[in-house]
């Protein structure tokens, strides 16, 4: 039988590409953000804040495309699940962009010559690197409809969570110097924002599983840590 609805299929593919392209914008924003954190580069931080409009714009664009497809094409089955998933993914992308903005906003608070505590900044650097890997992996998993790769994001996220906890311990024991304490508290805000980016990448992974299986389950139940809710395989 002839293949049908070719324009519609093109439209769907373009929508997915446009949405997942938002993850490239997040990676670019995250790279700049981490560089700004490392070098206390307030100008670069301002650039990240200004550029977030691109991610917000992408969100609005994808949202409008989704509304148009729903209104005009009545998608069903996998197409419907894909569109629903893309709406969630785009929301996660927008949140990741906002986390980069949140980090960039606190960089000026650390001051020009901050009392950098090397153990803590090393961990934050590692967290940023790990978050970048996760964002990239979430995109690859979605593009390939790879549920195993998506599930692996949970393992990757554990690394970020552990680093975040270590940062907290360091911050608690950072000493009596008020400037260093203030810097450490600011860095905790940074660590928390990066940790949220990791969570958003896991959320995208859950949408991969939804598109493929038709079942929506959180990979891990936040209120019951350690309890996996989606059978593997």
């Amino acid at each position: 039988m002839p293949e049908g609805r070719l324009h519609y299929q093109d439209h769907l593919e373009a929508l997915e590409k446009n949405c997942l392209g938002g993850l490239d914008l997040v990676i670019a924003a995250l790279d700049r953000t981490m560089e700004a954190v490392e070098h206390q580069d307030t100008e670069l931080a301002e650039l990240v804040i200004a550029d977030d409009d691109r991610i917000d714009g992408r969100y609005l664009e994808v949202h409008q495309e989704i509304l148009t497809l729903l209104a005009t094409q009545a998608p069903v089955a996998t197409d419907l699940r894909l569109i629903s998933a893309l709406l969630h993914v785009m929301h996660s992308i927008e949140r990741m962009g906002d986390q980069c903005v949140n980090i960039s906003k606190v960089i000026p608070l650390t001051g020009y010559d901050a009392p950098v505590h090397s153990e803590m900044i090393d961990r934050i650097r590692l967290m940023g690197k790990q978050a970048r890997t996760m964002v990239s992996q979430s995109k690859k998993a979605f593009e390939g409809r790879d549920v195993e790769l998506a599930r692996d994001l949970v393992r990757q996220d554990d690394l970020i969570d552990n680093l975040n906890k270590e940062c907290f311990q360091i911050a608690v024991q950072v000493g009596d110097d008020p400037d260093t304490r203030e810097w450490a508290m600011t860095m905790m805000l940074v660590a928390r924002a990066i940790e949220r980016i990791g969570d958003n990448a896991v959320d995208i992974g859950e949408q991969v599983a939804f598109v493929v299986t038709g079942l929506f389950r959180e990979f891990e139940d936040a209120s019951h840590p350690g309890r996996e809710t989606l059978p593997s395989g």
Partner: protein
Amino acid sequence: MPETADTTKTDTDSALQTDLAKTAEQASKRGTDKVERVAKRFTVKSLNLYYGDFHAVHDVTMRIEPNQVTALIGSSGCGKTTVLRSLNRMHELTPGARVEGEVELDDQDIYASNVDAVEVRRLVGMVFQAPNPFPTMSVYENVAAGLTLNRKVSKSEKDDIVERSLRGSHLWDEVKDRLHRKGSALSGGQQQRLCIARATAVQPEVLLMDEPCSALDPVATLAVEDLIEDLKSRYTIVIVTHNMQQAARVSDSTAFFNLEAPGQPGHLVEIDATDKIFTTPSQKETEDYVSGRFG
């Protein structure tokens, strides 16, 4: 050998029971909120339909739940209308047509030798694609046409049934002042609702609808769809439609039929709760059809 035959039958029955239990459970989740009258259930087992030598439908096994709307969908020639027509023994009216397998209405096999086909058609009414009121009869006469076939009906009883049927078909308010004008003078949508009133006047158990809205404009279509939603509180409804959005809107269960190739018999690919068919169908064939990827 009897042993082999028994084993095969048991396996078929067991598979059927599993399928049926699944269908019933899923369909009941969307079932009718209010059931005014419990209608009858169809159980179709290993149904094969032929037109002479041509094998039109191959081995259909499914259950059609009472007081629910079951939509039959599939591309042209896949046998869905043939299956529909076999449910009230209209298939056999075509010369050379024959039926193998069982079609049970509750526990009664409608093809059993002691069953009268006319009585089956009273219990299982049909609404056709194009509205077909009797052209020379008035609105009133159209609705009352089937009432006197089997028994004598008094004028007052007939009045009551006509009014009840027209009200049940959402038509009473539009025609109550012109009951004695020709039915064919009504609009297309009104004529189709008149045909539904005629079909329900004889108190059937099941209403079969063969693309009942394909000749209607969107407003009349929505009126008939609303009517179908109300009718399932009293009847079991089976609808054949080419409009998948209509199947999605009006039905509780959807059965997808397909052909392996032109000239091959149609077969049932799957039957499931409508929301499942349109979100996560079990079969790729169904997925491709409902999302318009093929044909």
